[in-house]
């Protein structure tokens, strides 16, 4: 985190003013910029312009804790890793406070491991900055792919998929997306989805279509309900328009223009 820049009220701000009131929305922008506790620590250290091998653990810990408490006060969803780092810092601090016994002076500096981690992380941050700079496709040079059409006679072999695989794939996706709680997919939904596709195709081919033509009495009550739900869903997703010129006149459905 070398340069944080946020624009607040039209002014560019690149560091958090020490004792000024920080408007919460601006602070949020700054905090969201940090990619984890090591990133935050590196920022705090760089801001002080100090030699990392001489890491002043007391002021850094204090500042780190201040950021953490600001984030918590703002109900910022704090990754557990930030708290782990807080306890690591506290542990180092307490070790440093213990009196050093003279015959144990080859014992490792309690800060050593943290300093090593910070340097290691900085190394890969540098690497990622180099990667950001080197030429890449569609930004610095242009690759020609799939540049030409070919005759329709090209045959693509059909993949071998079992229907159960399809179902499991969809369930995996739903689980991952955690949208299951808000979207209850029931057996009926699919018939509505299918009807939506049929209606869309019909409407696409004919400019306007009479509302009644979307229903087939032979399908019985359930079929009519499916069509009706499909129409409502299409309207809700703003895919079609329902048009009636005056009351009691014919109702038409058309593609949303």
């Amino acid at each position: 985190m070398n340069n944080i820049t946020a624009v607040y009220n039209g002014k560019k701000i690149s560091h958090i003013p020490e004792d000024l009131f920080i408007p919460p929305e601006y602070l949020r922008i700054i905090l969201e910029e940090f990619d984890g506790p090591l990133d935050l620590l590196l920022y705090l250290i760089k801001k002080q312009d100090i030699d990392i091998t001489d890491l002043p653990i007391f002021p850094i810990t204090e500042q780190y804790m201040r950021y953490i408490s600001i984030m918590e006060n703002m109900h910022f969803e704090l990754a557990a890793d930030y708290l782990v780092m807080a306890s690591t810092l506290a542990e180092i601090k307490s070790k440093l406070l213990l009196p050093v016994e003279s015959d144990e002076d080859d014992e490792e500096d309690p800060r050593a491991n943290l300093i090593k981690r910070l340097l290691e992380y900085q190394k890969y941050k540098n690497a990622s900055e180099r990667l950001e700079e080197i030429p890449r496709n569609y930004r610095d040079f242009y690759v020609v792919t799939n540049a030409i059409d070919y005759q329709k006679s090209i045959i693509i072999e059909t993949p071998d998929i079992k229907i159960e695989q399809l179902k499991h794939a969809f369930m995996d996706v739903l689980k991952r997306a955690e949208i299951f709680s808000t979207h209850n997919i029931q057996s009926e939904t699919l018939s509505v989805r299918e009807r939506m596709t049929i209606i869309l195709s019909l409407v696409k081919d004919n400019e306007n279509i009479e509302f009644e033509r979307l229903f087939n009495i032979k399908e019985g009550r359930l079929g009519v309900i499916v069509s009706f739900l499909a129409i409502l869903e299409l309207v809700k997703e703003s895919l079609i328009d329902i048009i009636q010129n005056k009351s009691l006149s014919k109702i038409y459905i058309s593609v949303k223009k």
Partner: protein
Amino acid sequence: MSFSLENIIECLLLVSDEPLSSNQILKILDNAKYNKKKIEDAIDKLNRQYESKAIFINKVASGYRFQAKSGLETYISKLKDKSSNKFSKAFLETIAIIAYKQPVTRGDIENIRGIAVNSNIIRTLLELEWVKVVGHRDSPGKPELFATTTKFLDYFNKNKLSELPEISEVESL
């Protein structure tokens, strides 16, 4: 190095994902010395250069586009089959989302999967005719709405979409 108009047009048509009309090309060049006639002449000239080649520039409804001449179908089939990603998890998830949540846009699929949609997968699905474009959503960019086809159902030996396996809440737990 400066390029002739023909070479610039050739490069633009090859790099572009979509056919380009002469008006689009003029807009990109943004130079008063070119006009529609000059673009068309340049394309004619390119096609004469390509006489012995296996490629040519074809005029389709939305503009000019490179196409393969006939004769190399067996090679191209082998090539396309290899790169279609048909057996990947991404392929399966994409067709599953289209089937169960149709009609959907690319953006919808990306939102659900949390990751960008691979263009090859959509293209393969369209080429297999498992999926078709049924309309456009009325939102910025007018994205295409994808839905499954009867060919897709035929493959699974089903008559209706509602015959696909049900997704129930209980099973997801």
